[in-house]
């Protein structure tokens, strides 16, 4: 098991290396003059040249890349040409917010999607199944940013139940702690009020993010449950008198979940990259908003680094999923 994990981690390194190369090339080969943009509309040629020199952007591409790479190894993600802040510092600020949002969305999607998919399969070709089918296609078709706006309109503006955006009221200090997740940190400190506040801010963006993965998990779970219910061992279980409830909730469930796990892993990466829109709508201070601002400003270091970090998290998530797969499916474990 440990060897399996170690080997997977070793295989990740070339992927991450390739990622930096691609992002670097894309950002540098494409037209656009980030230095001039950063220097401002009134900057003179010499000011622009000075800025380029300061950030090493006058060097050949491979030298710039080498500098970036050697920095990376030491945990230095470069410096934003726009804000002149180290990217690593920014990431440390924004990443927990994004992760909290993604985990919350994924939690909702799994907790609702798995049972709903199971039920859809059990009531296959009857009205709950048809309903869940229509709703899930609708959920996948719903633009997240539009859904976000609708949620804001209903629950924040008209009903005024929940805050419009942001992560915590500006006038209060957010919960501090090791995880950087406000909800978890508040819980760890038994700060109930802080926890409720954090949840209220988290609710709408998390719902907006969760709908599409929820629908996909539901459909995946439905399909794999139906497949499992056709397996011989289900016939045997039925033939030997086990109750339908036990067959579905014990024997079918575990087998069906293992194939849904892969989807959940893929969605983790998708969600990480997809927070951009929801973070924009809800002013959620995460890496998506950060990357958007950097992209608009053609501020290059943050974009490469965000892509790298998300890529790394995505790959890590897939390793975790593989390990979980082994836990649920004992046959894989011993191979």
């Amino acid at each position, binding site marked *: 098991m440990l060897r399996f994990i170690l080997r997977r981690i070793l295989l990740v390194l070339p992927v991450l290396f390739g990622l930096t190369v*691609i992002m670097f090339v894309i950002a540098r080969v494409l037209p*656009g003059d980030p230095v001039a943009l950063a220097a401002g509309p009134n900057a003179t040629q010499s000011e622009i040249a000075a800025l380029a020199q300061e950030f090493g952007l006058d060097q050949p591409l491979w030298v710039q890349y080498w500098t970036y790479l050697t920095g990376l190894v030491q945990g230095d993600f470069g410096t934003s040409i726009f804000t002149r802040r180290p990217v690593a510092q920014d990431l440390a600020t924004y990443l927990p917010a994004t992760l909290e949002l993604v985990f919350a969305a994924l939690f909702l999607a799994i907790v609702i999607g798995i049972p709903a998919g199971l039920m859809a399969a059990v009531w296959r070709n009857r009205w709950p199944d048809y309903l869940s089918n229509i709703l899930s296609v609708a959920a996948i*078709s719903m633009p997240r940013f539009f859904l976000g*706006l609708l949620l804001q309109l209903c629950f924040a503006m008209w009903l005024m139940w929940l805050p419009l955006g942001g992560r915590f009221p500006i006038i209060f200090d957010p919960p501090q702690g090791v995880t950087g997740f406000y909800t978890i940190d508040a819980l760890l400190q038994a700060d109930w009020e802080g926890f409720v506040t954090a949840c209220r801010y988290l609710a709408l963006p998390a719902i907006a993010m969760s709908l599409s993965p929820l629908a996909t998990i539901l459909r995946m779970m439905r399909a794999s449950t139906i497949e499992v219910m056709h397996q011989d061992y289900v016939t045997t279980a039925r033939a030997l008198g086990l109750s339908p409830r036990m067959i579905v909730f014990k024997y079918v469930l575990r087998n069906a979940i293992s194939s849904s796990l892969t989807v959940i892993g893929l969605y983790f990466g998708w969600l990480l990259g997809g927070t951009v829109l929801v973070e924009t709508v809800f002013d959620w201070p995460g890496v998506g908003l950060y990357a958007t601002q950097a992209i608009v400003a053609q501020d290059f270091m943050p974009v490469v680094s965000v892509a790298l970090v998300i890529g790394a998290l995505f790959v890590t998530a897939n390793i975790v999923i593989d390990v979980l797969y082994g836990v649920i499916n004992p046959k894989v474990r011993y191979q």
Partner: protein
Amino acid sequence: MTDATQVTRRSARAEALSRALYRFRQSRLSVVGATMVAFVLFFTLFGGILAPYPEHVAGGVDTAHRFAAPSLAHPFGTNELGQDVLSLVMAGTPVSVAAGFAVVFVGTVLGVIVGALAGFNGGWIDDVLMRFSDLMLTIPSLILAMAVAAALGPGFVNMIIAIALAWWPGYARLVRGEVLQAREEVYVAAARAIGASPARVLFRHILPNIVSPVIVKMSLDMGFAILTVAALGFIGIGVRPPTPEWGTLLSIARGYMPDFWWTAVFPGMAMFLAVFGFNLLGDGLRDVLDPRARR
């Protein structure tokens, strides 16, 4: 003898087609989807012409009637410039749909080329191309598209290039898998045995047989391509006003909520319904064309 085999082959094909149609009609949702897509395509072709206020589509403003609530004259209300929202939504259809089509098409062409090369040649070509595709898949596609679009500058074509760049690896993987499988089929071995050139084997024998899964993926992707186009518009990278585009309309309207909600809700609904239609249709097509996925 030849005649007879041809007749049976044709009737077998007709039989398969009638079965496929039967299955398609069996699922009411895909018929609904097809109808919705037909509407969307209708507005793609005629939306600009049928718009009740063509002058607003062209960029004209009517400040006297700013933020009029939905009424008979303006079923979707008017926006901050007094423009008729219905006209803008109708005129925005071709931009989104054409962009969606273009993205899927370019992505498919790139993906099929890469996937076919990799799957057909195997060996190191396969390794290199597939490692590269996998790498591209780990980059968050929206961020990649945004970065490329921002660097290329605003514009319809630039936006399509940007999104398609993030789009092809999925097709490459799909096509490679299918080609690998088809390569092992008996009819391919037979074609090789009678001395067909590799190019002929690839184009005449393999590619035609992997069309269905590609079409299924294309139809399922159409909706997502439209969403991505709108997302770029919403972020403010992509097509610029005054060209009406759903995502851009929504992003401007955002500032005028909740009082003038109609400026946001109607473009958003149009987007949702178009994508919904394509997704329902794609689901139906998958059930018909890709029997392996059916249950």
